[in-house]
């Protein structure tokens, strides 16, 4: 019995020796970039990962390799590092515009199937090649490898970029009546800038949205509590800081399908010129003006989407939720000709701390 037990314990101890991922014995990939490679059907992958310089200091290092699939790229890269690649702490995945136009799902599938990859990580499309972006020497800003994710996160929380991550991409991708969007980055002055949004039809990039349209898009896309809007007319110009914006849908089935997107915006003026905003009627006037401007912008956006036959806002999903026995194929066919209206209602609650 004792012999048997000790044999069992030995066996267990050896069998329990599962693969370890000790923190300092792995190549911790923080960002992954995918580009087109000159060779046909090949993609080029770039990773950045921290290397240890001396006590307390890290530097990010980059590495590139090409292959036919993402899996192959990963294997290639693994052959170039001294410690095994580890994607568990990956926080941004970048795709170049070129490759995005051909579809990114094949590449994303590798990440989606890896249980180590999170869903709160950020995806983004870059105007230049991702290699160019990732190899920018910004070791001061990106010494901990969190620069790109923080950049996007910060802009989502405090600015006009809608909330987007790996999960929202997959959510929209697998939806019947919705198309994904991703942040659109570009290289500027040895740093990176958010240029707007990349629009997708399924997993293929079909267009972009400029940064001036971001706020209008965000209010249509989601409810928000933070954001700012620049408005101007001949008489004045100013900035509306958005405190609260809520969207709800009115769907009319008769006589034909019509959708109205109602957006209630509450905000305060933080800067304005040439008028006295203390007077109620002036404020009313500004409100009407902003409404008009936003309505126009919203209409323009919807028009653009219909022309591209994409639905990044998920209007179809809202219609589905209000329609019994919804026929999504028919919907997608008729989408581009649909009567979709945008109706903003703006209320200015405060006008800054000085009159």
């Amino acid at each position, binding site marked *: 019995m004792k012999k048997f037990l000790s044999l069992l314990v030995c066996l267990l101890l050896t069998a329990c020796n599962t693969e*370890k991922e000790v923190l300092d014995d792995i190549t911790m990939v923080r960002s992954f970039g995918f580009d087109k490679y000159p060779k046909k059907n090949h993609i080029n992958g770039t990773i950045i990962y*921290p290397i240890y310089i001396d*006590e307390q200091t890290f530097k990010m290092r980059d590495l590139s390799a090409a292959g036919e699939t993402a899996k192959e790229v990963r294997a290639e890269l693994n052959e170039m590092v001294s410690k095994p690649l580890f994607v568990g702490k990956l*926080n941004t995945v970048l795709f170049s515009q070129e490759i995005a136009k051909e579809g990114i799902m094949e590449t994303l599938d590798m990440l989606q199937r890896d249980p180590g990859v999170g869903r709160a990580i950020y995806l983004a499309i870059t105007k230049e090649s991702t290699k160019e972006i990732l190899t920018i020497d910004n070791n001061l800003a990106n010494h*901990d490898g*969190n620069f790109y994710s923080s950049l996007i996160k910060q802009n989502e929380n405090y600015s006009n970029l809608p909330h987007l991550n790996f999960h929202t991409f997959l959510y929209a991708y697998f939806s019947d009546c919705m198309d994904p969007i991703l942040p659109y980055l570009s290289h500027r002055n040895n740093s990176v800038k958010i240029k707007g949004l990349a629009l997708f039809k399924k997993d293929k990039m079909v267009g972009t949205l400029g940064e001036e349209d971001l706020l209008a898009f965000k209010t249509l896309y989601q409810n928000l509590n933070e954001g700012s809007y620049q408005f101007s007319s001949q008489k004045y110009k100013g900035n509306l800081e958005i405190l609260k914006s809520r969207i709800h849908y009115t769907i009319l089935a008769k006589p034909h399908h019509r959708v109205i997107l109602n957006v209630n915006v509450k905000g305060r003026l933080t800067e304005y010129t040439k008028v006295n905003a203390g007077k109620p009627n002036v404020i009313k006037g500004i409100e009407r003006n902003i409404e008009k401007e936003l309505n126009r912008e919203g209409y323009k956006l919807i028009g653009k989407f219909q022309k591209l036959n994409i639905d990044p806002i998920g209007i179809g999903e809202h219609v589905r939720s209000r329609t019994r026995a919804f026929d999504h194929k028919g919907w997608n066919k008729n989408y581009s000709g649909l009567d979709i209206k945008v109706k903003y209602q703006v209320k200015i609650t405060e006008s800054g701390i000085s009159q």
Partner: protein
Amino acid sequence: MRFFNTGKSIKSNPLAQENENKALDQNILWQEIGMSDWISGFIESLIDQERFNKEVLCFIQKNQSLKCKELYEQLPFSNKHYKKDPDKQTINSMVLQGCVALKKRSSKEMIFVHVEKAPNLRPISVPEVEFSVIGPKEAFNENLETNLVLIQKRLPTSALQIEFIEIGQRTKTKVAILYLKDIANETNVKTLKERLAGIDYDHILDSSYLIQMIEDNKMSLFPQLIDSERPDRIAASLIEGKVAFLTQGSPHGVYGPVSIVEFFAAFDDYFVTWHISSLFRIMRMFAVLFSIFATPLYVSVITYHPELIPDDLLSTLTTSRTDIPFPPVLEALFLELTIELLREAGARLPTKVGQTIGIVGGIVIGTASVQAGLTSNVLLIIVALSALASFTTPVYRMSNAIRIVRFPMIILSQFWGLLSMTLGLMFIITHLLGLTSLNRPYLAPIYPPRLSDWKDSFVRLPFYVQKNRPDQLKVQEKKKISWWKKRDIDEFE
């Protein structure tokens, strides 16, 4: 000395007795008294010679002619015995208790007079292990009688029952069992008595011997009875309905049945306001959890689940780990053992030297091992904190157990990280669930869940809220107070 008259050995081993008779006879010094017919027998070191000379000898000298029985009646002592024809064993045991045996040369009758020397004992001192800033500062000493007096002074009630038994064939250690007749559950009393009486061991030198011999599960790492050097704590436990015992020669009283939460209650929790003591108790509980799980958690996260580390912490942890030649588990074991070593060295040395060793060793070894790149400084912080946390447990036996539990957990965490840690946790819980203290569930207010007992477990609510004695003890008299009446608004007496 009135207690000892009831002293009765419940159990005796005939073989041991025989040996004793042979051996002890020689120690008794039989002396003739002056020119009289009387002889006296005693053990010199046990009796007070001066009292013997002055009081006994003089009296006999004056009343030489009296018969034995008459002399016994006239002898001006309260503590005396008369035996018509005592056997050797009785003589031995009486003399060994510090009596002087008196007999006439011609008869077999004997008188025993207690003139034992008052021993030079340690005075009642301040509690050292369970020191409290507020509250009484008396601690037990090694003398059973003094200890009993300390408790009796606190509980001047006729319900307080004190029963004695002698344990240990050779040491004949006197053990006093205490309980309150009208409160304590009889089964608990019976259990304790039976277990104590069942002990058959040749020497009992301290109450901790007894604890280890009567615990429900002797294989368990966790103590199942509490020992305390504070008479007030013992008195309080008696009032709650527990059973306690004191041992001759031991400065620790022991009581039970207890539940695991009591091990994390310091007695001065009752001396400060309930908010503060509740806070401290919760803190202690967290300290225990931290001390058991912090290092294993570090090992498993670093070894298996680096994904769990938040982005902002990542670089801190990685910098501290890089350049460390050992896998995390060895690093952790190395540091934990160092701390244990320091603690052990400190405990073996005199207080002042011990303190120095602790400080010097802690700082020097800690800093040096980080600088030498043997351990990471994050781990050093974790290990030091968890060692500190393990010392917050007020009962020394429990804090020992907690320190030990950490090691298997560290080794387990090396298997499958968090998964094997969870299994380890469940093993501990199962073990605790199976434990009993004097046949009462050990995890009591937690499981079986007795919400009314929670008032004095993880928290200590105000006294007026604690109207009842704990359910766990199944006491005869449940009510603790009946005087509290809530006053209405604007209502006065």
